[in-house]
């Protein structure tokens, strides 16, 4: 089956991203396809490369990065939600005249149309959090 995933909550405060990660990993292991993972609301905070969780805990962003690399996942961060919350990639930081960027490798910033498309293209859209 072809799945799309939507993640609505940030890391650590909520379990939504962890559960979505475990689901995505399990689905891929069973031979299912993940069309896209879309990060919305505070879920965009999962894409920051500047978080430093304690060493004996999981690193939510790095888990997604590793899974992305292994399966060539399409990890999309909503641009409108990201801008509000200070999540910028290099191009966006330059365009907005900001002195830093913080999007981790393997994530890309794009628009809400990508969420609608993810719903249309997949057999099931699963929403985690909120």
């Amino acid at each position, binding site marked *: 089956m072809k799945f799309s995933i*939507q993640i609505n909550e940030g890391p650590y405060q909520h379990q939504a991203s962890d559960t979505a990660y475990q689901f995505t990993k399990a689905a891929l292991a069973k031979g299912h396809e993940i069309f896209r993972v879309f990060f*919305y*609301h505070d879920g965009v905070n999962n894409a920051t490369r500047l978080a430093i969780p304690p060493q004996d805990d999981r690193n939510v962003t790095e888990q997604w990065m590793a899974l992305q690399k292994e399966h060539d996942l399409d990890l999309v961060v909503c641009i*409108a*939600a990201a801008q*509000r919350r200070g999540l910028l990639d290099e191009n966006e930081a330059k365009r907005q005249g900001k002195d830093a960027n913080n999007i981790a490798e393997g994530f890309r910033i794009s*628009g*809400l*149309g990508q*969420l*609608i*498309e993810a*719903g*249309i*293209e997949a057999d099931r*859209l699963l*929403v985690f959090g*909120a």
Partner: protein
Amino acid sequence: MAEVKKFMYLNRKAPYGTIYALESLEVVLIGAAFDQDVSLAFIGDGVYQLTKGQNTAGIGMKSFSPVYMALGDYEVNKIYVEKESLEERGLTLDDLQHLVWEDEDEDYAEKDSIRLVSRAELADVLNEQDITLSF
């Protein structure tokens, strides 16, 4: 992308206090460009999103209340409001904004967008959807 799916935006939260209501509207407006079969439902505290006479001056936030009035222009005209949720909060249809749309097929006749439904009826509507985005 010829396939048309039934999209339901389920709104459950008060308009302010959290950002879910505003960011739900943002998805609805973008999604309207995709020519899908769109419905919105308002349940629980979500019914407060549609109340008229909202004034956000005291909380220093921008009011997005007028955006709901524009939904008809985006051909978003199936707006379900759960009757029990209104009653539990001491509200009636008269407390909500009068949302309308213009029917092209009937010489642009103005029609009501809000459909007042019972909890049981809304359950049936939700059951028919392909995609439910919950906010």
